[in-house]
């Protein structure tokens, strides 16, 4: 019991005392995953909306593809981005490997299909309701897609949060392209993996607490936002 309790107490002291090293890791995690989610939304939401309302050859194939890519293994994404950014790779000259930027790129690739697929679902549902009215008013398909994205803004927050949840919790991609360098690219998940294997359980546990709290808090906010939107806009 002693061996289990002691790390717990130390972990709590780290969290409560706002340990500087701990804070740095948490902030880097948030920064990387928020930036990746933002990029994924900017790219993925228009793609999802166009997949929902568009009519072009290959649309079905793309829908299946994006649905399938929701389950992309993070280590494979990490490996691909590693190859792209390594010195000999096509984007090697930018020297991005083992930087937070590389981690943002990898997570954005991981999350974009999730955001696109979930957006497509939301927009397709409202498209079936709005289609005739929007066409009657003379909206082009592109305009309709933009309108439905705006109209679905509260439901789409769920898509963004699902993407963020995936980004902040994954370890494989950031480990490979970030390199888990202390003070530079070490995020919550990679630190947990490393410290656990080194036997430093307090730091790992403290980060585990924070990670779970962040994910729960974000979902609570999303739930509250949707409830408010439902009451306020119908």
């Amino acid at each position, binding site marked *: 019991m002693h061996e289990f309790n002691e790390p717990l107490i130390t972990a709590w002291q780290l969290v409560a005392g706002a340990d500087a090293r701990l804070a740095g890791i948490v902030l880097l995690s948030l920064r990387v995953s928020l930036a990746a989610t933002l990029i994924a939304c900017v790219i993925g939401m228009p793609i999802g909306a166009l997949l929902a309302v568009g009519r072009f050859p290959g649309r079905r194939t793309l829908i299946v593809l994006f649905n399938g890519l929701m389950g992309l293994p993070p280590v494979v994404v990490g490996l691909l981005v590693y190859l792209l950014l390594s010195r000999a790779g096509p984007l090697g000259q930018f020297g991005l490997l083992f930087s937070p930027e590389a981690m943002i790129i990898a997570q954005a690739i991981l999350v974009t299909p999730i955001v696109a697929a979930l957006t497509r679902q939301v927009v397709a549902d409202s498209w079936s*309701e*709005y289609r*005739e*009215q*929007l*066409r*009657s*008013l*003379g*909206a082009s398909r592109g*305009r309709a897609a933009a*309108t439905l994205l705006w*109209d679905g*803004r*509260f439901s789409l927050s769920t898509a963004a949060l699902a993407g963020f949840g995936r980004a902040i919790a994954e370890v494989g991609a950031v480990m490979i392209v970030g390199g888990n360098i202390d003070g530079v690219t070490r995020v919550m998940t990679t630190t947990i993996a490393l410290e656990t294997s080194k036997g430093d359980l307090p730091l790992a546990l403290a980060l585990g607490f924070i990670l779970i709290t962040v994910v729960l808090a974000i979902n609570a906010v999303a739930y509250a936002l949707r409830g408010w*939107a439902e009451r*306020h*806009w*119908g």
Partner: protein
Amino acid sequence: MNTWLSIDGLSLTEGGTRIIADVSLTLGAQRTVVLGPNGAGKSTLLRLIHDLLHPSTGVLYWPRPLSQAMVFQRPVMLRTTALTNVIYGLKLKGFKTGEARRRAQESLARVGLEHLALRPARLLSGGEQQRVALARAWALEPELLILDEPTASLDPASSREVERIIGDIAASGARILMTTHNLGQARRIAEDIVFIDRGRIVEQTPVAQFFKLPQTPAAQSFLQEEMP
């Protein structure tokens, strides 16, 4: 009677079913109501005329192209204010923001909803939402307003209000083409009745004559069933 639309040999087949079967029709009255039993193809005919559906065969001949707007049975409101819903339609037609806003406000006033302009549209009652939809259509000043059972999901008081607005829109010069299940409403609004059954035009008669002495057995039995 100035013909504004001639329909020739119009058919629509979907999944092997003929929904509209060889319809030829000349529309010239300012206010025409399409009557017929459920599934007769009334809504489909309106959608073909409004270009929401494409016919399998046949042609629509417009002597002069008319600007159109359509109001549906269930109003579709965007998640924004009533006013912005009306502005949205105007902006799609190319109006600048200031002008669109002015017209939208006027239009909401004409349907008696200026006091609800800034309310979220989807939280309004069904009748109020339908009036916002009418304001959105009216703001575009269409030459032809098409309405697909606009009062079917409304209570009697809201129906009367919607009917009054349709009358006002007609009085402002727009042609009205609508379907309804409410025969009293058809009688009050229409000049001409087009009666269709199973995708075919059965008869086209001035309203007074249709209700007094329908020319076909199908229309006679329809009237008997609907008005016991």
